[in-house]
Structure formats: C-alpha cells, structure tokens
C-alpha cells in the first residue's frame, strides 16, 4: 500500500471509526476537521506547545507530530473522551477552583499531560510536576496555579485533603 489517501479504522473515545484521510493529514487535524472533536487545539504545529496533546494507545502524544494514517487499529482518546468518562473530573474541578486556566487554550493538553503523570499513582514533587508539564505552554497563568491544582489532586487521590 502506498497512497496519497488511506482508509483507516480506529477507535476514538471508545467508538469505532472508519474514515478515509489524506496521507499528509495530521492526527489532530483529522480529529478536529473530520470528527469535529475540537477540544484538541492547534498551536505551533511543530511539537513545541502541547496544545494538540491526545492519547494514543494510552500514551500522551503530540497530535501534530503523528499522522492520522498511522492510527490504523489504534485507540485514540481526546479531551472529550476523558472528560465524558469522568476520568479527570477531580482534575478539572481543581483547575477551576485554583484558577489554573484563563483563556483555556492550553487546558485540554495540560489536563491530559497531568493525568498521565498522576496515573502513576505517586504524589510527585512540584519539581517533577513542572518537569512533566514543561512541554505544555500556558501563556496566561504563569503555571503556579496549574502546579497547585495538579499537586492538590495528586494528594487527594493518595487519600489526603485538597
């Protein structure tokens, strides 16, 4: 197979999807334009800003640095999926409570990235949190409130108080 257009079958947020895509179409463009899942944002389009973060087969990746054609057979999860499932409800509430977002453009990517760190089950140090979200740019908050929110959820999940 070598084509300018590719047929792909994958699951997106648990639903099976069969689509035909341009070989050059990035995963995030596919999600936004063809599936109208516009929660994943497009910022820099070269892997620097993290706004397009999605999960592929359980791992966070840059939606702009993967082709839709590469997702044949993959399980893709977007902010819409993890939001609807309630997986990150506590994280979303903590972001709201601590003003960890202002314009919200970076927030979907920030939440998915934070969730990957928290899913390890440990309470990470603030330094570790900063390191883990270092690939997600926020131009509003100055990050402090984001680190606060992630730390609070880590502690709460481990059985402490928010």
């Amino acid at each position, binding site marked *: *197979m*070598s*084509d*300018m257009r*590719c047929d792909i079958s994958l699951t997106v947020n648990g639903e099976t999807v069969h689509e035909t895509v*341009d*070989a*050059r179409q*990035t995963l995030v*463009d596919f999600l936004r334009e063809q599936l109208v899942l516009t929660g994943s944002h497009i910022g820099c*389009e*070269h*892997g620097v800003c*993290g706004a397009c*973060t999605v999960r592929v087969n359980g*791992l*966070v*990746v*840059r939606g*702009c*640095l*993967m*082709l839709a*054609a*590469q997702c*044949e057979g993959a399980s893709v999860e977007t902010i819409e999926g993890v939001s609807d499932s309630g997986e990150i409800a506590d994280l979303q509430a903590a972001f709201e409570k601590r003003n960890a977002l202002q314009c919200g453009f970076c927030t979907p990517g920030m939440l998915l*990235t934070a969730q*990957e*760190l928290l899913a390890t089950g440990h309470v990470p140090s603030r330094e570790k949190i900063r*390191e*883990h979200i*270092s*690939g*997600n740019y926020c131009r509003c908050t100055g990050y402090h409130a984001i680190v606060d929110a992630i730390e609070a959820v880590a502690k709460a999940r481990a059985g402490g108080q928010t």
Partner: protein
Amino acid sequence: MKPAPFAYARAKSVEHAIELLARPDGEARLLAGGQSLIATLNMRLSAPKLLVDLNGVGGLSGIAVKGGMAEIGALTRHAEAERSTDIARYVPLIALAMPHIGHAAIRNRGTLGGSIAFADPAAELPACALALGAELDIAGPKGKRTVKADDFFKGLFETALGPHDVLTAIRVPAATAETRMGFAEFARRHGDYAMVGLAASAKGNGEKLGDVRLAYFGVGNTPMRAKKAEAALAGGDVDAAVKALVTDLDPHDDVQATGATKKHLAGVLLRRVARQLMLIRVSP
C-alpha cells in the same frame, strides 16, 4: 503550516522498507517516531514524495544484553529506554541523558534509532552513541553492515546511512563495575535542544581514568570528540583538559549563543562532567 502532499506506505519488514525506499527519484523518507520529521514536514522544510512507516515492523524495538554488549532496537522509544532497568544498569549514560530529551509526550513517540539517524548536531543521543563507542547496525540493498559511531556522523544531518538504508540497532559495550559516565547540558528551557552539551564515558581504575571519551553536542555540524581534552583528563588534569578545548572545539555563533560563549560553557560542562566521571561508580 500543513505538510506538502506525500504518499504513505507501511513497511511490513526491514526488507520491505528497503524495497519501498528504492524509488528512482530518491525522494522517500523513513518515518520512525516522527518527532523531528513530521515537524519539518509541517514547516515544509522537507517535502518527500513518500513516507515509509517503520512503526509496524516487528523485531526492531527492545533492549537485549548479550556477550558483554547491550543491543537497543532502533525503534525503541525514548520512554521505554527511560523506564528500562537494563538501560539504567548497562547503559547508564543513556539513562542520564533521557530526561533532557524533549518532553514526556515527545519521549512517548520518539525513537533512539530515529534520533541517531537524523543526527541533529545539538541532540543528546548522537553524542551518547559517540561517547559510548557504539556500533550501528545498518541494513541496506546490499545486505547488512556495522558502522562505528566514530565513522557514522559525517556532516550536518549527514551520516553513513545511504538513501536506501535502515538503521536497525545500536550496540554498546554493557557497563561494568569500572564504567564511569557523565552527562550535562545547557539549554534555555527544559526539553529544548542544548546550547552546548557533553556526554562522556570512561573506565575508572581507582582514582585514574582510562578510555576517556568526551562527545560534545551543539558545538559543530556533528557531535564531536574532544580528543586532546580526553588525553588530559586521562592524565587526571582537569585544568589542562579545559584548556585543551581551545584547540579541540571551534563552535560557530548560532541563534542561541556566540561561539565564544559556547566555548566557555564547554569548559564549565567539562568540569561538571569530570566530577561525575571521577565520583560516579556504576554498580551493575
């Protein structure tokens, strides 16, 4: 921006990939982790006619230790190496370098082979390969061959790989009780390419160092050995090693720093790395 149009093909095996690469126009590119390639396509710095995706090829990833060598499959993801107890134990230099490479999401996709084959002069892994004296296994239209890291990096983004070759594995001597490693870099932001970086390995014998290999990155068109500094460091003289960098390195000005600044920073890094080489003992 969006990439210029290209065709996409999934390679079923290394042989199939080599076959697909053999287009008469030579405008096919291998797609491994894609964390550099797709960025350059998006910016239209590169516009190949065909992408040959290696990700479905079996047997190209994973870490195996045999016969005193650690073999790392070219398609091994950074995140996999970062978590690997075999890497921590047998290739501790790569374990030291990992946290400096991109960000978590980049490390989930990016591959060790892809980084070495791409040969960005400011990237960590090509310098690690050079510092470790790695052997690089290559499959091509005429069969398989092995190239030493010292002969692999030819010029800016240019390696011993031909247009129809596939890098299949990286082999490095597995660390022993004598192995010493050092790694340090300066970058403006966490995860950025380094302004200057240094990956180093040596054999420790009491207080003495032997087989010192210093591989700088971000100071030229390829990762570069600082051979006079290596000799001085083997003699135990850190000050002389730092002085020797004046002849070993001639970094050009770039957007990040002037050549003079880079040269100064190279000396600062050497002192830090020398301390690591003299103190850190790896216990396999």
